[in-house]
């Protein structure tokens, strides 16, 4: 992983179009500002993971899968 040290008000660029600025730093939180073209989706990682998990959850399921699932819940 690339590690870059930045202070409040400083930015970094990802490619030519995406800018990430450090807006505020607190004890346990940082506030980031992101400038990116409209076609680039910016999401909290938890939302991205949930979107992927939701797509997996709507996939095909055999009746054997269903009984396995029920068994693990009861």
């Amino acid at each position: 992983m690339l590690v870059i040290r930045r202070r409040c008000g400083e930015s970094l660029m990802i490619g030519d179009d995406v800018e990430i600025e450090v807006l505020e730093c607190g004890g346990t939180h940082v506030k980031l500002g992101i400038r990116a073209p409209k076609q680039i989706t910016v999401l909290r990682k938890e939302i991205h993971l949930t979107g992927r998990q939701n797509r997996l959850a709507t996939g095909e399921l055999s009746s054997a899968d269903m009984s396995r699932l029920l068994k693990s819940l009861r």
Partner: protein
Amino acid sequence: MVKILSKRLGPVEIDETVTLQFPAGLPGFERCTRIALVERPSLAPLVFLQSLDLPEVCFLATPVTAIDPGYQLSMTLEDLECLGLESLELAEDLLCLAILGPSESGNFTANLLAPVVIHRKARRGVQAVRIDSRYSHQHPLGGEGAPCS
């Protein structure tokens, strides 16, 4: 009543007046704003979240407490607003479900990172993605991985 050919339930009739509104949809399914909670007593504690906008979308879910009896709900202000609530402390009549699905390896898991919270009285719902990392989006289910008896 609206008839839907559900992927998981087969043909079902859904009373539109008891449909739940999900103003923000669900992550990955932003167009699913009308969802019916369908229960089948023979399949309890499993419940179904059937989309009325996309009939092929039907989630399997179960109350989070069936998976983790000590589950502590935490919601962002935006998600509370989706339910028409100001704070979690004042909320009554909330149903908190975990969506069930396979992980990449095929084992069933529950998404405890992002429970589906339903305000029954207001008939509104939201998938409340937590901002902490206290719970996993792929929490293993009890029976999974246990040796066959």
